[in-house]
């Protein structure tokens, strides 16, 4: 992210990303419920849906991992807000320092080291913000990979549902629910990735 927006710490951009992340967190709490429901149904239908039971317990593991990964994203957003706010503050301070007229040699000598220190601080903050965005994108890729696992679990659930005997229709319904939820998360996060790449 080398655009000037991120370098100056554009809070609006961070907020946009955060709103998407919040949406995904809301959807992922749904995965947990769907998985739980799937496990209960599998239990009720007994032997016939053992495979389905296995898949749905895997799905619960997935939803817990997803939750953890999303918490990680939230923490990164927090760091970004902190550093973006620091950047804005430093920009203000620099602006005020810069407004001091330094026509005389003596004044220049006083101001130069002050401005140099300021610039060094801003350089550091700018670097930090760059690293924050980088970490955010890495974590996002990790979450997307995790979602691929979720997608293949949903497919397995669909296959297992076929062997569910008279429970087959119900299991299929649950499997579809799983697929829908995972897909929704996936497409939302992909959209976020495109937004962040811009």
């Amino acid at each position, binding site marked *: 992210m080398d655009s000037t927006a991120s370098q100056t710490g554009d809070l609006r951009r961070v907020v946009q990303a955060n709103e998407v992340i919040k949406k995904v967190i809301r959807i992922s709490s749904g995965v947990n419920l769907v998985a739980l429901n799937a496990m209960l149904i599998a239990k009720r239908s007994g032997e016939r849906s053992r495979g389905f039971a296995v898949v749905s317990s895997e799905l619960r593991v997935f939803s817990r991992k997803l939750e953890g990964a999303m918490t990680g994203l939230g923490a990164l957003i927090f760091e970004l807000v*902190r550093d973006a706010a620091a950047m804005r503050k430093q920009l203000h301070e620099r602006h005020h320092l810069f407004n001091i007229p330094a026509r005389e040699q003596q004044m220049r000598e006083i101001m130069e080291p002050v401005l140099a220190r300021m610039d060094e601080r801003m350089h550091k903050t700018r670097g930090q913000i760059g690293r924050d965005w980088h970490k955010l994108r890495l974590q996002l890729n990790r979450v997307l990979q995790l979602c691929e696992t979720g997608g293949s679990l949903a497919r397995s659930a669909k296959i297992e549902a076929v062997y569910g005997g008279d429970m087959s229709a119900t299991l299929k319904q649950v499997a579809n629910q799983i697929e829908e939820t995972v897909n929704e998360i996936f497409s939302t996060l992909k959209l976020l990735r495109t937004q962040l790449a811009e």
Partner: protein
Amino acid sequence: MKKLEFIYEDGHHKWAVVARDLEKPGFLIDTNEYLVVNGSEALLADPGGMEIFSAVFSAISAEVDPCTIRHLFASHQDPDVISSLALWLDFNPDLKCYLSWLWGSFIPHFGGTAETFVSIPDEGMDISLGGLTLEAVPAHYLHSSGNFNLYDRKAKILFSGDVGAALLPSGEDGLFVENFDRHIRHAQGFHRRWMGSNAAKLNWCERVSRLDIDMLCPQHGAIYRGEDVKRFIDWFAALDVGSAIKE
């Protein structure tokens, strides 16, 4: 880390507090920031100091889209109340800040232009938040000479700024006052020193005791609920303020 907690919810009408921060360095006074939400519009009361901006901003963003904040309310001119103004305006240059007319030319030292401020006259005014009416209630000289509380008649909540403030020791971290007698000891020194006028205090107590209040929310310390609201007003009425300096 600061966290946003909802203290009132009725459909789309909500009050939340970003309560004091247990991890904050001790040299900064701890503050509560209050967010009033009505549908897609929100007002932030006493947005806080510049140093805690990112903590407040993050805490709010975790629960509410900060783009919905259209109004700031500054009870008075103190840095712990409103020195974050420039950073809020960076985020949203169209923000309006409600403030006593008395501080109209002082607060711009923290940021903002002539368009930013809405002057509150001494007698107070109504503030509309997406159809909900909030009232700026005069609380002059308590402690600032141009000072307002914010009353929500529907939610029965009074944001009281520095009135009711307590400087609580670590360990007393609850959001609400649980034991009034124990709590008020931490408010006494503050009110005797910071509040300067007994006449202004009695005038405030008389007016505020006529309001229907479920929660009295100060900028520092814990929130008074139910019976404790009346207890506080009675306690304050009886307290000799402006008396903390020995002759």
